[in-house]
């Protein structure tokens, strides 16, 4: 619980599988299986508390978050009533995933076809979700977005939306 709930840096939480295995001194052959078993058990254990163990694919860290119901109650959405910034974030995510974690600022502007995209990106940078490099015209995603946003759920929502 200590490793999974810790705040390492501004955009890094929890711990990697290796860090957890080291802390638990698990060195056996099937340590990965044991790890999965422990994670599954812990997740089930804390489920009753409205918590869940999650995995951030952006930096391969395991961490703890509140489940969807609790997150909705405490308004986890940082862009409530700010659809423009949310839309810019979505475009940034789509472009960055295409470019393995980073993309050109120009690409986002072209895709969005809206004014004030640089300002939106600055707000996203302030939130800690992206790092802007104006000289290189680059946007880099930080791991933080992988902690706060359920990317699988987002892409499922998109897929359903496209199907409809």
């Amino acid at each position, binding site marked *: *619980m*200590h490793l999974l*709930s*810790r*705040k390492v840096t501004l955009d890094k*939480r929890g711990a990697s599988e290796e860090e957890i295995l080291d802390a638990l001194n698990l060195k056996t052959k099937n340590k990965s299986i044991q790890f999965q078993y422990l994670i599954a058990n812990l997740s089930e254990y804390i489920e009753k508390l409205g*918590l869940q163990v*999650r995995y951030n694919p952006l930096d391969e860290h395991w*961490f*703890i*978050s*509140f*489940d*969807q119901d*609790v*997150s*909705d109650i*405490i308004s*986890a*959405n*940082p*862009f409530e009533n*700010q*659809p*423009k910034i*949310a*839309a810019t*974030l*979505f*475009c940034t995510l*789509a472009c960055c*995933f*295409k470019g393995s974690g980073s993309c050109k600022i120009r690409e986002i502007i072209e*895709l*969005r*076809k*809206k004014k004030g995209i640089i300002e939106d990106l600055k707000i996203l940078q302030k939130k800690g979700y992206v790092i802007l490099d104006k000289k290189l015209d680059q946007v880099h995603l930080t791991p933080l977005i992988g*902690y*706060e*946003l*359920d*990317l699988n*759920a*987002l892409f*499922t*929502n*998109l*897929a*359903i*939306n*496209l*199907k409809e």
Partner: protein
Amino acid sequence: MTEYKEITEHINQKIEEVQRKVISGKIKLLNYELAPIFTELKKALNIENLDNSSKTYKAACELLNQKFEDLRRLLSSLDSEQKFIDYLKSNPKDEEISRLFDGCWRKIFHVDGLSLSFLEFSKNKLCKDKGVPITIEHLDKVFSDEEFLLEIPEHNFTEKMFEFLVRIQKYLPCSFEEIFGDEQDQAKIYEIFVYLLHLLQLGKIKYQKETNTLYT
């Protein structure tokens, strides 16, 4: 048994209802959470209703397979990242894009108080010795072919009580305390006390409260 049967029947009804709604197009399986059905089934699982549970489990798995199949179809229809870009190129409104984030944000659980030292402190507090708990040792049963006889006193209570009366007659009248003399044995004191109570009740001896005297 009936209770477990009722639970599996309830789950079966729920599965059938989901199937009906999917067929009629009222709901989409991809949007429907199946985990509660499996959780309910897990809770209802009992050796006595294994047959019913396995049938329900099969039906729930079919529903799950159907959901996987829907997801597979969906993903295969979206196998190109270009389609995501194409979606954005179709100029959807900001509100529409924003709605895609609905239900996707999760609050990170981070508590400063949950440091390793705090956890160790809590563990030590919880694991503090609380003394050895009392254990009840049950006696071993001994089987014997011999007839069991309950040992009973040679004299019954009335006989012993009158023997006591004869014994104290020569001291009466005397004070209540004098009857006990220097007796230290608690069991004996209790026995004497009980005899006195009975003899007083029977009227064989009397007691004058004012002078604290026993007399016949």
